[in-house]
């Protein structure tokens, strides 16, 4: 005997999928939309200009044009060695964004892998990993970064990314592990086990997609923080090597009070760009966060 036939497909009311909620939430937030548009244009601008702006040309010292005010030649003037600020701003933004992005992605990749393994398998593996993470977490981050920066002989953008990643993945790993611990108790994971699915498949195709929205929100918010990460170190004199254009180096030129007061074009555009960029990414991240958190949804 046939039990109740299923209601016709059309009448089954579709509840929106997670992604469409994300999209909808984003679209509802004018600030987030504006930010998204800005960000896209910004990225096109800085990466699209790779062929247009020559780094050697931009960083060429011109002693006869030191601290020139903005003009048609130099849209945003020049710095204390006659280098074009606008060009540095573009290349610097590209460097800073790349750094922020790479740090975020790499620390997420490591954190995700380790967090997933620790959380899923638990027991001894988890124990060892967590002790290790605890240890890294109590390390004085800024101090050790400064020490590392001084001992690495060939130090550049990628080394900087590596050092930062070495410290920042732990936070991610902890977050992910906590989430996985909760997730692995859910019945669908148990079900997969009883269905004979290998662990790595459960992790990769079962758990991971379910963490994706959390991870993406977290990454977005982190990205915002990581964009400016090198500014502080640049100020202390342990940022990127001299002569590597970055938003941090431009901003930290404000350390010199003469520059801060008289030659605003050295640091102000970069500061504003950082501000806007971080705000934009943050707005997008907050919108995403609201979308994943039903309680905070705009409605």
């Amino acid at each position, binding site marked *: 005997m046939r039990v109740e036939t299923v209601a016709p497909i059309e009448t089954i009311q579709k509840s929106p999928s997670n992604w469409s909620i994300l999209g909808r939430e984003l679209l509802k937030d004018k600030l987030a939309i504006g930010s998204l548009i800005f960000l896209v244009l910004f990225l096109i601008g800085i990466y699209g200009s790779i062929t247009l702006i020559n780094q050697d040309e931009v960083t060429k010292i011109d002693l006869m044009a030191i601290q020139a005010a903005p003009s048609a030649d130099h849209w945003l003037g020049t710095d204390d060695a006659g280098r074009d600020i606008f060009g540095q701003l573009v290349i610097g933004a590209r460097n800073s964004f790349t750094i922020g992005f790479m740090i975020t992605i790499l620390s997420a990749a490591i954190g995700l892998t380790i967090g997933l393994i620790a959380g899923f398998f638990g027991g001894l593996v988890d124990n060892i990993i967590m002790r290790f993470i*605890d240890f890294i977490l109590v390390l*004085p981050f800024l*101090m050790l970064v400064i020490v590392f920066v001084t001992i690495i002989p060939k130090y550049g953008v990628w080394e900087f990314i590596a050092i930062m990643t070495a410290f920042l993945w732990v936070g991610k790993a902890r977050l992910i592990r906590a989430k996985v611990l909760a997730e692995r108790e859910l019945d669908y994971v148990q079900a997969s086990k009883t269905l004979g699915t290998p662990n790595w498949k459960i992790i990769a195709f079962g758990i991971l997609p379910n963490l994706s929205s959390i991870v993406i929100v977290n990454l977005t918010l982190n990205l915002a923080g990581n964009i400016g990460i090198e500014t502080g170190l640049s100020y202390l004199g342990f940022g990127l090597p001299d002569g590597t254009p970055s938003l941090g180096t431009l901003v930290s030129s404000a350390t010199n009070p003469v520059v801060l007061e008289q030659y605003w074009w050295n640091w102000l555009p970069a500061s504003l760009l950082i501000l806007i960029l971080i705000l934009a990414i943050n707005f997008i991240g907050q919108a995403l966060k609201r979308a994943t958190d039903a309680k905070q949804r705009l409605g």
Partner: protein
Amino acid sequence: MWKFTLRRILIMIPQLFVLSVLIFFVAKAMPGDALSGAIEANPKVSAQVLEEQREKLGLNDPAWVQYGRWLGNLFQGDLGKSYVHKVGVTDLIGSRLANTFYLGVAILILTYVISIPLGILSGRYQNTLLDKTITGYTYLSFATPIFIFSLLMLFVFGFRLGWFPTSGSVDVGVQPGTWSYYVNKFYHLILPACAGALVSTTATIQYLRNEVIDTRLKDFVKTARSKGVPESKVYSRHILRNSLLPIAAFLGYDLTAVLAGNLFIESIFGYPGLGQLFLQSITQRDFSVVTALVMLSGLLALIGTLLSDLILSWVDPRIRMG
């Protein structure tokens, strides 16, 4: 509880040991040593004399021999001697610790005094103009580099308006121990503490706001309302306490972290504390000081996590430790 604390303290020992190995060898890997700068101090000093000095200080021994010696001294409570400052590291750190402590505590107090009300208001009046203003402030302070912020404060309040002293921890000439001495110290503290606090409020405000928003929707809040508890009391007794719980957990960490010094604020406001000492010691390769300071922050962080756990177990009846 005591057993728990004791066990946690025992656990710190291996962690500190690993940290000491790490920092010691990393510090040794830094190019140069405390004597590299000597040619600047006296251009006539002969290289042989410097070599002799190195030998005497044991800087020429293999790193592990130096480490062994250092560890041995450490067990006798001797952190070594600062080459640059020519005093015991313990004394040196001791002399800076007080300043760092005052600054740290001032920042901490200000941070909480500012961020707790703002976080609660922002969460309670979610999506109102007030909330948006406060959130806007947190975004701004999140996105502004701390040193730009501090430098601007220094220029505006210190120099343009002249309201506050612009560097140092105390004026010259006031007699230590007198009332005016402490007033003067406090006066020097205001600007750096405000700068430090304004920046560090961000995270607390946002965290608290989210907590309040979450807690507001909990069932027990509904229960409280159903008992006829007035709205203001619902917040102060129920929502607030539960939202502050995670913040209380950070407190332990914050309390000890203030002792590690604030690199940015100290260097911008010329405030002689441990953060400034660290930066100077790094550039001058004053290894004994660098290692001691890193060890100190590591130790403080460990104590901080312990303290956090203790505080949490104290304020949260659900967490009991055996």
